[in-house]
């Protein structure tokens, strides 16, 4: 069991162990939805919310249902079911209270279901043996980290629209390259805190 405090884990999950830029999870919606800061911010918020809530729910289900009955082999399928149901809930919520955001996110909102970062966060929580508060901290941190990465990326891509990108690199290729550079920049934080 890790002894690090929940707050440190939260900060670490944003900067040193950014789930997107160090583990490269959740790349598909990261690339596809980072065209505009507004959309990126919306998706980032949705992912943060879903990630926090699903790590909490999954923690409870894992330690109070699966472990006591020796059903750890069901981890993946149960986690995915929880995530899918929760995303449905968020979709209804966003559609009701922010139709603009709903249309801006479009197909990517239901796609959060299959965003590997969400499942990844829940699994890391189990592998790293966090307690409940650490899990909450990690969930929030990983979500914020993902949101930070996609907003940074969207900002860069908005700027990049005015720059002279060589034709073969236009679109996705340059986005991939920029992601790598961004990841290297984040590697500068590595070693400040260790949460593995």
């Amino acid at each position: 069991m890790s002894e690090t405090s929940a707050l440190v884990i939260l900060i670490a999950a944003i900067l040193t162990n950014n789930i997107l830029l160090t583990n490269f999870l959740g790349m598909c919606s990261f690339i596809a939805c980072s065209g505009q800061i507004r959309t990126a911010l919306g998706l980032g918020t949705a992912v943060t919310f879903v990630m926090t809530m699903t790590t909490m729910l999954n923690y409870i289900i894992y330690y109070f249902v699966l472990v006591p009955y020796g059903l750890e082999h069901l981890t993946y399928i149960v986690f995915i079911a929880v995530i899918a149901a929760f995303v449905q809930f968020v979709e209804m919520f966003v559609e009701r209270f922010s139709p603009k955001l709903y249309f801006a996110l479009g197909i990517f909102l239901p796609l959060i279901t299959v965003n590997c970062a969400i499942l990844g966060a829940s699994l890391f929580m189990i592998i790293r043996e966090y307690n409940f508060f650490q899990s909450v901290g990690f969930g929030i941190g990983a979500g914020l980290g993902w949101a930070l990465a996609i907003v940074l990326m969207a900002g860069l891509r908005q700027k990049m629209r005015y720059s002279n990108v060589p034709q073969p690199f236009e679109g996705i290729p340059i986005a991939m390259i920029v992601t790598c550079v961004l990841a290297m920049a984040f590697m500068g934080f590595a070693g400040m805190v260790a949460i593995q």
Partner: protein
Amino acid sequence: MIYVLSVFAFSSVTVGLSALLIIAERYLVTYGVCKLDINAGEKPLEVDGGQNLLSALYANEIFIPSACGGKGTCGHCKIVVNAGGGPVLPTELPYLSRKEIRSNVRLACQVKIREDIYVHIPEELLNIKMYTSTVERVRDLTYDIKEIRLRLEDPEEITHRPGQYVQIQAPAPGEPVFRAYSISSPVYEPNIVDLIVRLVPGGIASTYLHNLNTNDTVHFTGPFGEFRLNEDPSVEVVCVGGGCGMAPMRNIIYSIYDKWPERCCRLFFGCRSTRDIFYLDEFEKLSEEHQNFQVVYALSDELEPDETWEGETGFIHLSVDKYLEPDIKRQAFLCGPPLMIEAVMRVLAEKGMKPDDIFFDDFS
């Protein structure tokens, strides 16, 4: 034991989640009553929000053509949504051209009603009604084609143009399906609708229609279809059909000779063999009464040794090529399998016809 426990744990988790979702849906997805305005105040309606536009219109007896029943796969339910429909969804894009997107055309089945919505529906579609009818007569035309006569009960009359079709509601597991069939009875018989139905192996609607008995009840919506007969009697009308594509032609021909007994009209009909021929004697009788009506049937298969046939042979577009003089003002209506339509279109273009004067109804 572990298996039972696993199954039990997983099912209880999913059941719990579903219950939560159902409760959430109950309280979150309520939009209250929204205004549905048709043609700028012509027909204001109030509908429950949260449903899609197509079903809201159906519930108010406005029948927009739809072959897939609202799944977004046929692209027939196009209407103009002027305000309140939200942006075009990715599911609609494959069915809309750029021009249609610019002029606010949407697929009614994909538009969810969230707020007051303003739509434009052509007058014609507003006249479409749901009809209840009873089967008056079923007649075998060939070994696999039946003529079914429906007598309208409610409403008692239908106003249609020759060449239009109705959508028959056929019961199916789950939801009933709608299938399009042309009206083969002429327009001057407003209280009956004749259908010509070929039995398609495994077909839901054709199996249903072939199994009907006298006095059974049939529901359908209609009339649909864009075809407009040229009202100028000097324009010749050419009808080309194949297989069971006879229904719209029969309607057109009888309606023409009721109104213009002297008008020029030709019917070309392609069959495989003599056992596929139907209505020939009926049309020959008509051509004796009306000098300017010409009927040509052609058989595409080889004759059996003991058969005799004095008409044309070969595919129907060859007969069209043989009998039509080029460069005459005419209007054409084609109905049959896609390959036949393609071949006949080519022949008609060679005869100097413009695409605007050729209408077709292919069985694809």
